[in-house]
């Protein structure tokens, strides 16, 4: 039995037909839609490499059944930069070297975007560290990640104030 679901992925509405209800949002993105920027690190919600925004909230795509998110707006790392401009979080990760191998980086960045939107951590580095602790970086680029999220928080706050 096949199922149809409607998703808006990175701003584009699309209808997806699934022949198998077992498909997770992560495997849908990677293996069927070939949006491979989102990574699989553990497939069990224990590393954060698969973090995407679902209706604006950061989630582990590996523990999300695709069918259960029918109608959702999904933002992946591929949809973050707008008009050829890096998102402030992306730019800050480069500037502060918040990465090494890069494999966890899409998840780190999507998690940071979600964290900043949650507006709980603010400019407190300790709250940022805690808030980013669902994203494991085995290379341990944590100092750069924290600095990048701090800077991006400031940039986005300034942008919001100007707007």
């Amino acid at each position, binding site marked *: *039995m096949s199922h149809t679901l409607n998703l808006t992925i990175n701003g584009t509405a699309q209808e997806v037909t699934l022949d198998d209800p077992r498909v997770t949002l992560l495997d849908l993105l990677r293996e069927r839609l070939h949006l491979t920027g989102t990574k699989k690190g553990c497939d069990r919600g224990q590393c954060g490499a698969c973090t995407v925004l679902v209706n604006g909230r950061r989630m582990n795509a590996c523990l999300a059944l695709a069918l259960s998110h029918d109608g959702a707006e999904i933002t992946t790392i591929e949809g973050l930069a707008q008009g050829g401009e890096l998102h402030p979080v992306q730019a800050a990760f480069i500037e502060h070297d918040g990465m090494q191998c890069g494999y966890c980086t899409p998840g780190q960045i999507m998690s940071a975007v979600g964290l900043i939107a949650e507006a709980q951590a603010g400019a407190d580095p300790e709250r940022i560290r805690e808030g980013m*602790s669902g994203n494991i970086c085995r290379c341990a680029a944590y100092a750069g990640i924290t600095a990048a999220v701090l800077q991006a928080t400031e940039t986005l706050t300034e942008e919001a104030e100007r707007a």
Partner: protein
Amino acid sequence: MKPFDYIRPERLGQALSEGAKPGSAYLAGGTNLLDLMKTGAARPERLVDITRLPGLDRWEWGKDGGLRIGAMVRNSDAAHDPDIAAAFPAMAEALLSGASGQLRNAATMGGNVMQQTRCHFFADPFSPCNRRAPGAGCAAQGSDRRGFAVLGGSDACIATHPSDLCVALAALDAVVEIAGPEGLRETPLTDFHLLPGTGPEGHTRLAPGELIIALRLPAAAAGFRHHARYLKLRDRTSFAFALVSATALLRIEDGVIAEARLALGGVAPKPWRATAAEALLQGARPDADSFARAAEAALQGAAGHDAKITLAKRLAARALTQAARGTPARVPALPGSVHSGETAHV
């Protein structure tokens, strides 16, 4: 993952009738169920997706100051709401000490209460586990007991209940609202989870097809808001299950403990309410002696891992001490941690 049928009812009645069919499991946030389906520990034939049931994803305040939280409210929404955090700060701290930001965005309040033990042998379908396969035996019995129950276990099962939230809920006298084929019923959270005894497979009082629809926090529980803490010891600073955790709630009047609540996590197959300790504290001065005696009482009869029992006593006393000092103005930067979480170096 075993193939399954996927059903997404739009109404509670439909969900209950679908959920009552053999082989069914309810899917909410999915953070525990999908994980267990991946390891092979859970192999449902039908998934009944309850994420679209109307009315379960919100909370409402009673006129008396009590709170009713729909089962589908996400952990992060409950924890981040300033009114909820003000009335029930230990619950907010417990929620935020658990899992990760991503998981809390997906995990639901009802699902948290329903979550399974994190016992390795339960999650691993190749290990004997009475809880997963009744009669198979309990592989945990002969292993290092550090991660297992020191209270409330049995020869059949010594797995611990992993929830942080439930430790706070137990202390807060939360009530679980349940819908089933027979209608609505409710039970105190402290009675909801079962001790293993000889049949650990039924770890809650839910009958097949029944569904948690809400959690209720009585108005009286908000009376502890000035003296409420959740503390959690773990092997890494964040994103780890508790080795031992404790919720301590105090009402202090005229320098004397008018009422105390103490619940422990990580030490038993269910969130462990320490009523004997509470009784000792009632009318006592909020001092180190009282808290030490209460902690001893809380771990009365504990066995299996001496260092863990010592830790649990010390943590219980510490949580009471911290509660007596007063609830922090805001959930600390490192929720549940004994480390300060003050703004440190960049």
